[in-house]
């Protein structure tokens, strides 16, 4: 299939980009890596008037250290994120989860920010951002604002960004020492979307769990934190039994979708199994 026509601009700077976005009106779309957008265009499920290609704005590609956080430029590709020494050192969960996104060729083009802005509940990275309490840095001609991950993912493929806003980067607090991380992705074939995914970070204190962050992929129209699980493991011994018991609440309060790849009921079940496994893997238990 073939995309419908659209106008195309390739701004050289963030300022130019947000201006172009503002001028283009609400039916414009930002073209980042295009790995989610291109299939939609080709299937004619999307009809943007204009594409603002931010692929050449070098500043958006940087991954920088801000002391207690990393700021990952929206246009850093998955490939770059996976290999970035800062990410690997301070935010290995992001590297791990990104490795599971699509396939190598898609990871060469697809971007960290693009995945976030697409806000696909089956995407792997939104749950990771949620688990890590990331903050989304958003620009428009009206200025700049920051949106915490908890507010960013609003609904099925819908983020809190306005049509005239551009995601410029994501600030992710470093986890510091003592944390173990894991992303447990469950899918039928290597290329397939996650039926359920669990992003997990656990800080251990000796044999016990001091703090846990657990966020779920594809367990609702947007990623969700399994806060009941987080609470249930905090302060408890890092053991499989504890994890299993706590994980039994993983699906509490979620509204998992039912589709070709899994029923709601099955997803709810999977969430419990996978959460226990993710906790174990993150703690080496």
């Amino acid at each position, binding site marked *: 299939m*073939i995309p419908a026509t659209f106008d195309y601009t390739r701004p050289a700077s963030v300022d130019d980009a947000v201006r172009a976005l503002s001028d283009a009106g609400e039916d414009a779309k930002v073209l980042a890596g295009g790995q989610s957008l291109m299939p939609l265009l080709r299937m004619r499920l999307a009809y943007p008037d204009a594409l603002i290609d931010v692929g050449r704005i070098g500043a958006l590609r940087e991954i920088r250290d801000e002391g207690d956080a990393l700021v990952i430029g929206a246009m850093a590709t998955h490939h770059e994120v996976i290999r970035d020494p800062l990410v690997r050192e301070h935010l290995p969960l992001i590297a791990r989860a990104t490795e599971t996104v699509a396939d190598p060729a898609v990871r060469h083009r697809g971007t960290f920010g693009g995945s976030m802005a697409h806000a696909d509940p089956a995407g792997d990275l939104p749950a990771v951002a949620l688990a890590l309490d990331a903050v989304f840095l958003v620009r428009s001609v009206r200025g700049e604002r920051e949106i915490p991950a908890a507010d960013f993912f609003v609904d099925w493929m819908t983020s809190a960004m306005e049509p005239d806003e551009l995601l410029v980067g994501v600030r992710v607090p470093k986890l510091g020492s003592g944390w173990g991380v894991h992303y447990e992705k*469950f899918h*039928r074939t290597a290329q397939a979307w996650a*039926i359920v995914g669990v992003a997990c970070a656990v800080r251990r204190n000796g044999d016990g769990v001091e703090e846990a962050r657990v966020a779920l992929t594809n367990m609702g129209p947007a990623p969700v934190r399994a806060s009941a699980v987080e609470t249930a493991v905090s302060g408890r011994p890092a053991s499989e039994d504890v994890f299993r018991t706590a994980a039994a609440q993983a699906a509490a309060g979620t509204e998992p979708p*039912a589709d*070709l*790849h899994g*029923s709601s009921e*099955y997803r709810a079940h*999977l969430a419990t199994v996978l959460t226990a496994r993710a906790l174990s893997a993150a703690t080496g238990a």
Partner: protein
Amino acid sequence: MTVQEGDAVTTQEVGSPRKRSEDARLITGRTRWTDNMTPAGTLHMAFVRSPHAHARITRVDTSQAKGRPGVVAVFSGADLAEEQGSLPCAWVVTEDMKHPEHPPMAVNEVRYVGEPVACVVARDKYAAVDALEEIDIDYEPLPAVVDMDAALADGADLVHEDLGTNKSYTWVFENGDLDAAMRDAPVVIEREYIQQRLIPTAMEPRSVLCVPEDEDYTLYSATQIPHILRLMLATVTGIPEHRLRVVAPDVGGGFGSKLQVYGEEVLALLIARRLGRPVKWTESRSEGNMTVHHGRDQIQRLTLAAERDGRIRGLKVNLLADMGAYLMLVTPGIPLLGAFMFNGIYKMDALSFTCTGVFTTKTPTDAYRGAGRPEATFAIERLMDELAAELGIDAIEVRRRNWIAHEEFPYETIAGLTYDTGNYEAATDKALELFEYDKLRAEQADRRERQDPVQLGIGVSTFTEMCGLAPSRVLGSLSYGAGGWEHASVRVLPSGKVEVVTGSSPHGQGHATAWAQIAADRLGVPWEDVKVLHGDTAISPKGMDTYGSRSLAVGGVALYSACEKVVDKARKVAAHLLEASEQDLDFSGGRFSVRGVQQEGKTIQEVALAAFAAHDLPEGIEPSLDSDATFDPENFSFPHGTHLCATEVDTETGMVKIRKYVAVDDVGTVVNPLIVEGQVHGGLAQGIAQALYEEAVYDTEGNLTTTTMADYLIPSAADLPAFTTDRTETPATSNPLGVKGVGEAGTIASTPAVVNAIVDALRPHGVNDVQMPCTPERVWRALRGEAKPRAAEPGAGGGLGSAGGDQ
């Protein structure tokens, strides 16, 4: 021609792992896919397709589209109604078979999602696709018919109102006294198995290019059947056959899906005729998933009666086979190809087979790799495992007690076929050894003991199949519309180089390599000196094309015969040149020599040159060695083998992982082991994919929800295991080469091996079936003891509308 003659041949080429001559262009991108060709002036077609499973077309307004820039013409079905005819079905399986009209482009009514309704012809693809949006069509929706059982119920909504029923036919085959077999049988096993609907998914999407020249038309198509297509196009359109040339250039896989006469092919021809310009159409994958014929889709209701010792008494098979909305080229015959395979390799006293073809508002079904035989093999091989479980006998042992022993061949089966040769014991013993069966059984016991969340299962499939389609007399008895012969001709050029022309039409198998091996051996010329020509009705005027694992077993044998004729002709010329009698000539290594006087001889190249010069030929001999031959097999070929699969089943998530897969196949004499192994690998991948991944899913309203590869899951390298393959070799006695087909064997054998392994892992949990594809959710549900829900619940990797509408 006798087997002894075959044995006399020195076999240096046949049996050697020749690297393929086809590869050079394929690895460098110098390919000739149909879509690669765009003659000057080519126009591009695009289709508006029905979004409805079933609807009346009340209005088609093409006026806006006609005004779009770059648009040359727009046609609705009504615009072509006078000339488009009806797509052919060549297999009228019963006298009273209901056989509806099937216009290439819908005129009054649409009966599946994706059926073409209107067509834009434009200067380029982009302009054509844009104009589709401007075509305005009104439909009056009619009820979708999705579920086969419901379709047969009284008062059911009808797919074809005028037929008065959704039943196309009921076809019955019976042999032996089934009632007696069932009466007081100590063991009776009843099962219902679902053969889900599959989408063949050749990597090359369909493509067709029609180039008109005066009153002649050359149609390039990604087809398996250029010869059949030419005849059918002539029949459908009334364009005389001799005005049509069909070319199958490089064809990127078929697996049965390109064994078809598609509406788009007919329309490309008609529109090229109307516009007097080349017309091309290439489908997109999502378009193709809706419109390439689908495969399988049967509900199998089975009753097996057996003795306490495991010996089978009889088998009753009741099939519902989903035809889809129309009968295409061989749609109704596909399930009947399985009729003779339900007994598998086993002896039994009675077999009763009843198949009902059912119309639904879905894409028509037709041949997909194995075509009827995988379904039958699945049924009997699954039942053998069920029987073993019922009796507490090892799955291998129960098979041993029933299979035809090697000394019993030739053996006439309960289905009336004569299996010429086979050695099930040898293949099984070899497979067990490679598999380390006992070791894995021990591990299985250990995991059961430990209540390991990951259980191990072992699945067995001791299969055979009938292939090498087909003896013409058999096809005739099954009311098939054509014969099953194949043609080949051999041209010996003046320089001694050889051109082989074959009626088989490859699409990835490697005919050019293997045929050259056969010819090189028979003629004693270097392999490099043989060029194989195919896939163009102007070059290869006679043929029955490629499907049903027939190329080598029928077409290869035709070539063998043609080569024999060349040698016979050459012998006459050589005898003349050597002033010896024919009987005194030996032919070996491409050289005729006078027996006892080895230094006196003529090479076949020298003889060819002499024949060309024609200066000194014996009386009554034409100046040519060229020969052709047509081979009509006297019997099918019956490859067999033993496949063993070990699966690890995660009982917490339902995820299945193949731990080990061993396939020992007996495909008779092997011409090229490299190619044979490749065929087995690819066949395994597709059979495993049916067991674990693939399903075409329709919702209750008849929408296909697996239109993309994101939803119709084709496994990648990361999803499949490494296979251990080996062979035993029991030559076929039905042809002089001793060969059997191999193209479908892997697919036929592997599906039940995988499912048997999954069920074996879960049997202690009370599970005796998991419906295909065995998605994690289905496995999980089976573990929870859930009966198969017939409700319209999504999920489970499947939905409604595929074979029976349950999931």
